[in-house]
């Protein structure tokens, strides 16, 4: 987790197959979400949150990689994200969960719908655990950058030169 020196804002960059936690005044950023899932989990009371940037749906495709880095896959990354937010003081009933990314290239090739498979698996995992998505910016062909402000819980999406709040 990033350290806060007084009120100084820490900027954490989450790369592909990565997850970072933030607290108080931190800003957690992830760039260029294509088919990957960006998942933001936030506790507005404890003011802690985490951002996961997962690449592929199921870890069975490469167990060794999943062992080295659970954040590469949705099925292994999502539970670790929630556990780490709990460990940092987050409580399940207060969590606000938002999702972005999961895009797909043009064309009807099912094989390349990795984004869609990432999203379907996320919904299944959340449903099984009784967690609802507050909001989402999912699908399409956009490249999305996410700015997750841990002080306010605000999630800003930047895409094609435009910004919007999630």
């Amino acid at each position: 987790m990033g350290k806060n020196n007084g009120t100084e804002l820490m900027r954490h960059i989450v790369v592909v197959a990565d997850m970072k936690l933030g607290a108080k005044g931190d800003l957690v950023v992830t760039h260029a979400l294509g088919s990957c899932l960006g998942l933001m989990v936030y506790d507005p009371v404890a003011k802690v949150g985490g951002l996961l940037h997962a690449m592929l749906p199921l870890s069975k495709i490469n167990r060794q990689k999943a062992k080295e880095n659970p954040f590469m896959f949705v099925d292994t990354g999502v539970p670790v994200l929630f556990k780490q937010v709990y460990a940092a003081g987050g409580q399940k009933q207060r969590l606000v969960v938002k999702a972005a990314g999961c895009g797909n290239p043009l064309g009807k090739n099912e094989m390349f719908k990795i984004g869609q498979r990432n999203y379907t698996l996320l919904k299944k995992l959340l449903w099984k655990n009784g967690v609802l998505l507050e909001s989402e910016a999912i699908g399409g062909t956009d490249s999305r950058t996410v700015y997750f402000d841990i002080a306010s819980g605000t999630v800003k999406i930047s895409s094609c030169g435009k910004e919007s709040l999630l």
Partner: protein
Amino acid sequence: MKQNRVTEIMDKVESFPGIPGTAVKLMSLLDDPDSSAAQIEDVLRYDAGLTANILKLSNSAYFGMMTHIGSVKQAVVVLGIKRIKQLVLTSCIGAILDKQVAGYDLQPGELWRHSIAVSVAAEGLIAELEMPNGDDIFTASLLHDVGKLVMGGFVQKDLEKIWNAASKGVPFEAAEEMILGTNHAAIGAAILKRWSFPEKIVDAVRWHHNPEDAHEHSVIIDIVHVANILSLMIGIGLGFEGLNYQLMPSVTERLGLSTSNLETVASRTLQVVNELSGLLEDG
């Protein structure tokens, strides 16, 4: 108007930097079956930066072997000519491809990372499909987007018009063509022609978005097509246009590709790209 643009763009292709002299000398030496490791070392002796990069790459997990490689001569013997050619090209082309690219909104280093990703993913796909790995797949992949360096400024100027066309479901390279009269794949092919690259590499670059338009199908075009889109999907080199490119189902059918092939390659690509681009960035 469109024709004027094409003329302007082709003028830029004419003034685009040539491939570095040492690389040209080395490539012809490496193509000559009679050349020796000592001759290759002689050429490299005068280019300390290139030598250092070749040794760094030779010892990387991706290109390297278990043994530590301490000299160019040893690298030639242990890795073989094909790999050495790839290392020379990777090292020389990095300086050209690591620039910021306007229009596509790629930060410095991002086009370079994308080029490496497509090369690694392409070799990964070939291995997954148990196909023979020719010399040219890595090279074509590394160079497939070189045209973006010339097109960037032009795309930037007409971005609104291009984006208007693309947002109606037209693939981005087709939108470039509608507004500017040409696209980054055609311009990349024109650059490689000037650099005297073999026809099959020029063709793979030319048709990397439209494999069906090539005069004949080839594995190299199909593989670059798939590796490119896969790399964009995992966010490496994903620019302003996002995933606004079309994946051709006929290509995956021809290759006999499965979802599991695709995801396995994606899972293996990321770490190698980080390792290789990091090695060359450190100077």
